[in-house]
């Protein structure tokens, strides 16, 4: 297959760590951009030291978490506490079209790598800074993980059983929303530069970006002063609606019935048991009124079948339903296989393992990661000599002085 080269003319200096910045840069790398990931041995990307590790054996080059977001990038180590490393960083910026960074506000300035300085070196540079709360405002110095960001942004009150302690939304949820906005901002800024010749500085707050995914709740509060209720899996427009236990250990399906036609189809699929004809389940409003009872009835049916079977017969009968998939289910999922969601790539230290593709497919110029993720500093020589044009002697000098650590 011919490799995608949509961004073959785009060069990215990726100073970002963790999820949000690296994931955004990977989108462009998949479609041909040259991305140099800048790290240092004294301060490695936190994902490199986070499980899972290949074979459960820890090591900075063994984390699947790190690798998924950094496929196809070149790895450069720079100890930015050394003045010579800052010179190399500046040469990298001169080479680059785009700089992405996720340090706390003020760190890039301390190094002389802030936008005001970089724009003098490279007048049309596009620079993106992404932090939890943005570059300005009283709380800008806040430090935390994506889970903290998700709590600040309001997600902690959207996930709750009706009768139990609150729970934490899984994962660094705001990172996954934020990374798309960063990729979109970079491409939009490239287009703006194409038309006007001007670069720009972009300040992304992951909390702010993610609040748009709560827009419906924000407007409900603005108009009606309503706040999200502890609905568990229920929804005002559906009944039954939720996760139902199926046969097997910790196996679940979801079912979503909105209209009376869907309800009739659901009843027909489960064999029209007498309870299903009870008038208290006849209309949506009847079913909402008697939802506890309804859910018990539905689960008494699902509990006798494996979830795959429940989904198969409901889908065949025209009722929205799905397996509540775990990672094993997804790895075996025929639709994802058909879309080639997972791709095996060779990694210099741990060999071939699975990476994920993004969720869009282009009909004419498809993209996918071209290499496994870099080991720490794997391409320092390549970046210094081939990309930045240093002589072999200069490179060796930097190496011996510890600049590339």
């Amino acid at each position, binding site marked *: 297959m011919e490799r995608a080269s*949509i961004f073959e003319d785009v060069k990215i200096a990726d100073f970002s760590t963790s999820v949000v910045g690296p994931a955004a840069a990977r989108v462009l790398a998949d479609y041909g951009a040259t991305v140099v990931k800048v790290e240092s041995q004294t301060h490695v990307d936190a994902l490199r030291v986070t*499980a*899972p590790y290949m074979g459960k054996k820890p090591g900075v080059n063994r984390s*699947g*978490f790190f690798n998924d977001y950094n496929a196809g990038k070149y790895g450069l180590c720079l100890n930015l506490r050394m003045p010579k490393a800052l010179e190399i960083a500046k040469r990298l910026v001169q080479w680059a079209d785009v700089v992405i960074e996720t340090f706390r506000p003020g760190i890039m300035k301390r190094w002389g790598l802030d936008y005001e300085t970089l724009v003098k070196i490279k007048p049309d540079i596009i620079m993106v800074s992404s932090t939890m709360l943005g570059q300005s405002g009283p709380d800008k110095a*806040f430090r*935390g993980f994506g*889970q*903290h960001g998700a*709590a600040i942004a*309001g997600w*902690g*009150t959207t*996930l709750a*059983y009706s009768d*139990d302690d609150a*729970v*934490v939304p899984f994962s660094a949820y705001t990172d*996954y*929303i934020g990374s*798309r*906005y960063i990729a*979109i901002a970079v491409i*939009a800024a490239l287009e703006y530069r194409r038309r006007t010749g*001007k670069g720009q500085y972009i300040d*992304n707050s992951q909390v*702010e*970006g993610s*609040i748009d*995914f*709560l827009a*419906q709740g*924000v*407007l*409900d*509060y603005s*108009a009606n002063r*309503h*706040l999200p209720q502890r609905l568990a899996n229920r*929804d005002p427009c559906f009944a039954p609606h939720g*996760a139902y236990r199926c046969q097997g250990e910790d196996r679940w399906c*979801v079912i*979503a019935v909105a209209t009376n036609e869907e309800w009739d189809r659901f009843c027909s699929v489960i064999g029209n048991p007498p309870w299903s004809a009870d008038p208290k389940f006849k209309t949506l409003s009847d079913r909402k009124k008697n939802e506890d009872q309804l859910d018990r009835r539905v689960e008494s049916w699902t509990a006798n079948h494996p979830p795959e079977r429940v989904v198969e017969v409901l889908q065949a009968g025209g009722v929205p*339903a*799905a397996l*509540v998939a775990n*990672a*094993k289910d*997804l*790895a075996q999922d*025929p*639709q994802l296989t058909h*879309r080639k969601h*997972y791709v095996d790539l060779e990694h210099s230290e741990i060999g071939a*393992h699975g990476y994920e593709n*993004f*969720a*869009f497919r282009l009909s*004419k*110029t498809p993209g996918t990661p071209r290499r496994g993720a870099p080991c720490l500093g794997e391409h320092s020589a390549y970046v210094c000599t081939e990309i930045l044009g240093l002589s072999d002697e200069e490179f060796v000098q930097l190496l011996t002085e510890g600049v590339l650590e």
Partner: protein
Amino acid sequence: MATSNSFLSPYRVLDLTDERGYMCGKILGGLGAEIIKIEPPDGDPGRKIGPFVGDQPDPNRSLYWIAFNVNKKSVTLNLKTEEGKTILKKLAASADFVIESFKPGHLHELGLGYEDLSKLNPAIVMTSISPYGQTGPCKHFHVSDIVCWAGSGYMWLCGKEDRAPLRMSIPQAYLHGGAEAAMGSMVAFWHRQKTGEGQLVDVSITESAMWSCLTAHAAWDMNREILQRQGAFRAYGAYKIRFMYPCKDGYVIFLLLGGHIGARGQKALAQWIDQEGMSDEFLRNFDWDGFDASTYNDEMARKLEPFFERFFMTKTKDELFKAALKMQYLLAPVNTIQDLTENPHLAARDFWVDLDHPELDVRLTYPGAPFKSNRVSWRIDRRAPLIGEHNREIYGQELGFSDHEIRALTGKGVI
């Protein structure tokens, strides 16, 4: 009005989506493109989705619809009529993007698929958003938001281990699909800007939501491990550490972690607890520098957690957060939407945007820009349109239909 210096101000998007794809056009509109929402003559079905302004169900009062169709213009068009198809083709001939979320194959059957529209306009970027993708064994599955959410693997990971997996009560799957579609559209758009060649962008909503699963895929791929739901805790290998704590007026997220990431903050917090007389020898002498994910164990956690549980109950989330900003321990408030709208930090950054809805006699507060630029403003300046509000502008002024013709098309149910 789109300002001439927006990212995408010269470009036009035809938005044929239903709720599965609204977010895509909303984002492209935020970037400054002109978004023409094409609705069936009786209005977009998403207008029936609550909540509603004043809790009064009405197609022009749906807050769900309003939230994701801000910035758009609306024309009505019946794509099942021949005249309707002709009008769509006229619009597509000069548009830059078409986005749609019909059942896979539907537009093709109407003669309005990518192969039809690209003949008229080879540069067009056409983005199709669907639950599982345009092809494959599940392409015609019956879905709702929770069906895609469950299929993504993310729902499995939320909730308590011994209870049902949980979704968020504000549905998320379609929003991920729409945002992914905006990203894919932009990738295809850059190719077209360089080469003049458009293409089809095929987006799967379920696959879009998969990216929120953090390490779930890698843990399976590398070690055949299935991550479990963690409830109010966070798992470190075999050990669990409390992550969500009740406090005086709600909840906070607090990560008990020392080592090079957390020791400094933990020491400061432990000192504060001591100053308020809620500590003892164990906490005073605790080795925070040596306390990280690798040295952590269950026994230690069960001994440590009660100090913080008791202390947090004496403080509000704001007090705890203000101190965290200074001391740098890893804590954040679990904000409600009300907290957000009153948050001084967001206010200082001018995050919120107020738009008037004179027809409804309300002014609504919208979430603002997802990113700020020193050159270009994120656009959010046009309240969501009424049904067919821009028929006269688009059909009359632009396509040149007379008032008489517009009335005739309306009478025939074309627009």
